[in-house]
């Protein structure tokens, strides 16, 4: 039985979920496309962003917006730390993709268990978001949903513009399409890698915080969104989405599929 009301409600929630998935995919994708690292530990950046905000709010008593900033800063710091302390020395030694992936896996396991030891296995909320519900016809949604969609796509378009227009973005794209050639023309791979780790970590932090505002933080929260991010990237473009325009088109396609699947 076809119910228009149900369909539109599912379409709306599909768009909300799809947008956050798209953001996750892009956050993983910028790192993967440039460094070829299957950055599993992205899940920890996601989890850590949430926990940092929760702690800043509950323990340090910061206002919500500042707590969210703390979450983003911590996520970026972790991304930089992982790149500098773990991946870069290994890359210098010519480590294989598999070795890098296993390192990432080890970081994820150690990280999520450490969070459980420090914060306990129970869920932690991030309260204080002024939640409002809207109704348009029979379809209801919250201002957080709206925020999620807007922020996600603003971030995604921001990344695209950054990659296309700025000097650093162009260097990143050059490194994505041909690393050796990019190095030959004077682009420093180390710098580009650091840049994409920062970029990816900010995006994953945004995604984590949007989620936690309406949900809770838990030690293993990073796993399933990251899996979705991985799958999004691989589905997104068979040629490993070298071109951002194509990536974007694929994302929108994915979004539609996702909303249909929800329904």
């Amino acid at each position, binding site marked *: 039985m076809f119910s228009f009301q149900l369909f539109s409600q599912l379409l709306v929630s599909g768009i909300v979920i799809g947008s956050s998935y798209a953001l996750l995919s892009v956050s993983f994708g910028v790192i993967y496309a440039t460094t070829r690292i*299957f950055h599993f530990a992205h899940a920890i950046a996601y989890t850590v962003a949430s926990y940092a905000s929760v702690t800043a709010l509950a323990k340090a008593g910061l206002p919500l917006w500042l707590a969210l900033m703390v979450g983003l800063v911590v996520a970026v710091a972790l991304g930089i730390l992982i790149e500098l302390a*773990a991946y870069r*020395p*290994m890359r210098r030694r010519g*480590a*294989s*993709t*598999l*070795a*890098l*992936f*296993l*390192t990432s*896996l*080890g*970081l*994820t*396991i*150690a*990280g*999520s*268990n*450490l969070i*459980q*030891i420090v914060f306990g296995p129970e869920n932690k909320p991030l309260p204080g978001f002024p939640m409002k519900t809207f109704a348009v016809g029979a379809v209801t949604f919250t201002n957080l949903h709206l925020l999620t969609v807007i922020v996600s796509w603003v971030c995604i378009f921001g990344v695209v513009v950054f990659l296309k227009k700025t000097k650093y973005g162009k260097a990143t794209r050059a490194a994505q399409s041909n690393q050796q050639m990019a190095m030959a023309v004077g682009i420093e791979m180390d710098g580009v890698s650091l840049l994409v780790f920062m970029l990816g970590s900010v995006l994953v932090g945004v995604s984590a915080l949007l989620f936690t505002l309406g949900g809770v933080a838990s030690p293993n929260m990073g*796993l*399933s969104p990251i*899996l979705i991010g*991985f*799958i999004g990237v*691989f589905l997104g473009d068979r040629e490993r989405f070298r071109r951002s325009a194509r990536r974007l088109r694929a994302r929108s396609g994915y979004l539609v599929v996702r909303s249909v699947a929800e329904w």
Partner: protein
Amino acid sequence: MDYLADVGITILIYIILGVSLNLLLGYAGQVSMAHAVFYGIGAYTAGLLTLPVLEAAEGAAARGVTSGLGWNWLPALLIAVAVPLVFAFIIAIPAVVSVTGEYLILLTLAFQVVVNQLMNSLTTVTGGPYGLTPIPPFSLFGHELSSPPQALGFFVVAALLAVFVTWRIGESPFGRLLKGIREDEIAVRALGKNTLIVKVTVFGVAAAIAGMAGALASYYYQFIAPGNYSLDLSIFVVAVVVLGGAGNLIGTILGAIVLGSLTPLLQNIAWIGSSNSIPWQGVIYGVGLVIIMRFRPQGILPEGLSPRWFKHAARSASAELTGAAPGSWSLGVDYPDSAETCASGDEGDEGEDVVRISGLARNFGGLRAVDGVDMALRRGRITALIGPNGAGKTTIFNMVTGELKPDSGQVWFRGTDVVGEKPHKLARFGIVRSFQDVRVFQQLSALENVAMAVPGQPGENLVRLGLQPRRTRRAERETRAKAHAYLDFVGMSEKADELVVNLSFGEQKLVAIARLLATEGDVLLLDEPTSGIDANSVNQVIDLILRLCRFGKTVCIVEHSVHVVDKLADHVYFLDHGAVIEEGTMKDLTSRPHLVEVYFGT
């Protein structure tokens, strides 16, 4: 006593899971993140088969208990080995078609998560989050054996079996193929081996062994729940293999013992307490993984390294195999000792056209890499393809050997069009190639490199390996003797047991030629056989090629050195921008002024 036996059983389960995953991860270099799920599929299969049959009146659903078939544990075990095998085939077939490692990680990861989720949600079959219970324990002759010390025996037997089977497979010709695939799959295919079948098989074997462990564990714990088969366990098993040393079974056993004793040890440390012992175990092996990858990526016991007593056993086993080797087997053919030119023999007695190419074309995007090429490779004659970089020479090789599909045109081999055949098929027909970048298997010995190329080895088939152990062992002795003979032919017999990675580039090229010859192919396509090696080795390679051609092989070389082409080639094709511009003898070509200008120089 019970406690120790219980810890022992846990470790033995890790050993079984570890050695089976090592076959996949360490030997074949294929990452599987789904090992826990195969273990789980075995457990659920065994559980569903052995659970007692419930009367409909009792209302299985009403009590929330799933009804089983009431089988005995032993036949159920056999089915529990077979079912994961089938699942593995289903997942492996799409996985192995694509060769990229990341894709495989993703696919197995998705399989792990989805199946684990299904275990939770298919409540009518799996009992949902509460799982299946009570599964009947082990029994022998009507006696139930449910205490840990009683069950321990079954696990010891199973672990010994698993280690034996994986060791036997790993050290067989099949295992050699696995290592070859790990090192360079394209090169294995070019030797005429069907790597797809090998990869699918090894997936199946690894899953079947994990399924066995799952069934036994279900009899012991008498309880199955989805949480036991989560991604955490898959990652844990990967850590066991990697920490111990990928490609080394003793290392895996060591890894299982070390990581398996972590939880019981941590539980007994007062300040951690039993509730935090599992997270601490995660932290420790996670950090361990990072440290090992950073400082000792080959693991605690690297491949090929083993404790003394084991090494002794291995050496005596291989001595038995190689004892009769060098010189005991002749190539069975008389390659001429040396030759000045190949076709110098009888003028006019031209051999047949073994390979004929007509209208071959291929585009890469907008670039016409090869644009309607016609050429013929004649038996007993050395054909050379020359021309500037990017003229399409290697692309032609790639199309003739099936590595690349032409957009149009035909490749005739002894009168049949072979376009569209798979690379390993063409290699078996006798069209074999060497690579510009050599592509020898770096982490294998020179002998293993050559032995892998020997066609028709029964030990590459797991069924025959299991059913005809003596025949396969005899065949392996012969293979090794042949490999020795080929190495001797190229003058490399003294370096037979060296790992290829330790050889010089020139020596690696010689090993590559021996490997090529061992395929027994008739048409040899040599891509820059003398590039990057010193003058002495160049002469050695020239001499070898001449002798091969004299013997009757059809030889085609791609070469930039005018000196080498001049010495070798009877017929030369000059290519530019994907088309044949001129052909003839080297003398003809060097007398054409426009070619001198653009290519040969003055």
